[in-house]
């Protein structure tokens, strides 16, 4: 095992896949310098400008270009620097990429990967801090992955490139300075296989991306009070490992989801809905959705800290659930 950050692991995975498969190319803004977060480090030097394509600030068209190239068998990795900028090119994502297979009756494949970053916590303000994977996941025809560590970030990228479908990978900036262990070969990570990071008998807590360490910290604290929290990282949002979540709820009888995405009509709501519909009879308490408030991400450090869910909020929500008999 090697300690790596997410950008390091992604860069290494890209080195490996680009060396192995000439159909893979990278396209996005400021990649030649190694990418603004370092996830393209050394690629331009090694593979040249034909395969590491620096673009003008033209998201709509370079995403569209990537989709077009994928239609004819290339494997583009399109980088959208911040997921907030998906707003600029959302038509290409929602109408072109997502519907191509369906509208062509399966005759057109789209082995396209979109890498983007997300997340609040660093004072980047309302247009560089969102976590809008729920928006992408709400569109049928897109796969959506949310790695919580370096091994998953690299492995999901590899799986995405092996598959025939458009995949959006949301990497959380708040995790970029954290080194996590990864097998240096960076093996592919399967889609739709949740990971149970901690066993517990009392509450099932699903946490996504940067909320995973928050959930683990809360589970630690609650364990000291005799409450067993089972922490599940879904790894991908679409496909979603419903079975893993429902099996855990069947065991614990309580469900909470910790999600930095939308407070309304987002992934948290979708998971609560799933559990209520499919595991109603096992529930001993009303499920809890722990999300930021339904507001834009504020800049002021004091407000941003209040906006982001932390371990204390998770603990409070779970303690309340435990009282709810």
């Amino acid at each position, binding site marked *: 095992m090697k300690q790596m950050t997410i950008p390091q692991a992604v860069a290494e995975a890209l080195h490996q896949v680009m060396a192995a498969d000439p159909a893979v190319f990278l396209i996005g803004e400021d990649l030649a310098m190694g990418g603004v977060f370092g996830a393209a480090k050394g690629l331009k030097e090694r593979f040249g400008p034909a395969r590491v394509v620096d673009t003008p600030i033209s998201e709509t068209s370079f995403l569209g270009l990537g989709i077009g190239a994928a239609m004819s068998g290339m494997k583009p990795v399109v980088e959208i620097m911040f997921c907030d900028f998906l707003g600029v090119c959302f038509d290409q994502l929602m109408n072109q990429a997502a519907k191509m297979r369906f509208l062509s009756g399966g005759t057109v494949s789209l082995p396209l990967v979109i890498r983007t970053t997300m997340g609040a916590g660093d004072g980047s303000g*309302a247009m560089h801090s969102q976590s809008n994977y729920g928006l992408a996941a709400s569109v049928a025809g897109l796969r959506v992955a949310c790695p919580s560590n370096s091994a998953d970030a690299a492995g999901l990228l590899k799986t995405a490139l092996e598959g025939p479908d458009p995949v959006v990978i949301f990497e959380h900036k708040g995790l970029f300075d954290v080194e996590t262990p990864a097998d240096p070969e960076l093996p592919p990570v399967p889609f739709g296989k949740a990971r149970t990071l901690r066993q517990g008998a009392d509450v099932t807590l699903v946490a996504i991306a940067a909320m995973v360490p928050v959930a683990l910290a809360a589970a630690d604290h609650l364990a000291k009070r005799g409450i067993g929290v089972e922490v599940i990282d879904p790894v991908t949002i679409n496909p979603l490992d419903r079975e893993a979540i429902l099996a855990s709820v069947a065991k614990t009888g309580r469900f909470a989801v910790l999600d930095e995405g939308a407070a309304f009509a987002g992934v948290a709501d979708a998971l609560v809905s799933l559990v209520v519909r499919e595991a109603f009879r096992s529930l001993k308490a009303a499920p809890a959705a722990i999300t930021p408030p339904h507001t834009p991400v504020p800049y002021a450090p004091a407000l941003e800290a209040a906006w982001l869910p932390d371990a204390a909020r998770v603990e409070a929500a779970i303690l309340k659930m435990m009282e709810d008999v």
Partner: protein
Amino acid sequence: MNASTSSNKSAGRGRRASKPAVYEASPEELLKFYRDMLLVRRFEEKAGQMYGMGLIGGFCHLYIGQEAVCVGVQSALKDGDAVITGYREHGHMMAAGCDPKGVMAELTGRSGGCSRGKGGSMHMFDPAKGFYGGHGIVGAQVSLGTGLAFAAKYKKTDNVAVAYFGDGAANQGQVYESFNMARLWNLPVIYLIENNQYAMGTSVARASSEIELYRRGESFKIPGKQVDGMNVLAVRAAMDEAVAHCRAGKGPMILEMKTYRYRGHSMSDPAKYRTKDEVQKMRAERDPIEQLRELLLDGGHTDEAALKEMDKEVKALVADAAAFATESPEPDAAELYTDVLA
């Protein structure tokens, strides 16, 4: 790289390359230009320092080097005219007469900030001063600026809108959709390109098939002009022409200001994509404030002592803003839920 060299080159190519026109300013006007540019520079230097001290977080894009543009542009506008730009907007706000205290306190994320701490460096507004933001998504303000001009025409005023954007933003598709509508409907909008040669780490030549950005309106029949954006008098002269064009109902105009940013793209940019020499040369030979300082002194309009006094006064203003921005209380957590919808 040198602005005048490029305009010479373009003079041979484009029909509308600029004659090097300069505004004939009175001594009072010259002094005001000087003071306004100095305020922008001192404000930005202070913001840079405060960022270094950890009082400002996240992104912070300094305007140092480009002062002649916002000061020259603003001086040509009148009440009711509208200005909109991207995230490198502190200078435009100083030029528009916004309170330095409110701007600095927004940078520190305090309740006294002009967006009450919610917006931060990239998202600030002062509609009372005709300043409509402060936008974090590259290029988005170009459509909005077109809308400000639409409103001015709709309301039958003779006001204009200035939509500032960068050389990098010039490659966003919505810029061209805006160009087309603005000319189709003859909207009074000045598309003001601040060509500071770089978009983050990407030089104009690496991102643009046509590097003479003032020509980007040709297929929309929008006249364009390239201007020495390091010379406040050249900026003002070009603006006078563009404003007259717009107020006369002739539709949009493009002004490409050749300028330069001295600092990195944002505070976290080590600027490895250019040489220190390149920056040094620009500072030494083309600095907008130094150029005007020489003009003032050579023309006998002022003396060293008076300029020093002015600098002291400007620095005091900025120090006040910094003190306010440090002392203003943090916003109450309840503020999270306000202003989301009316």
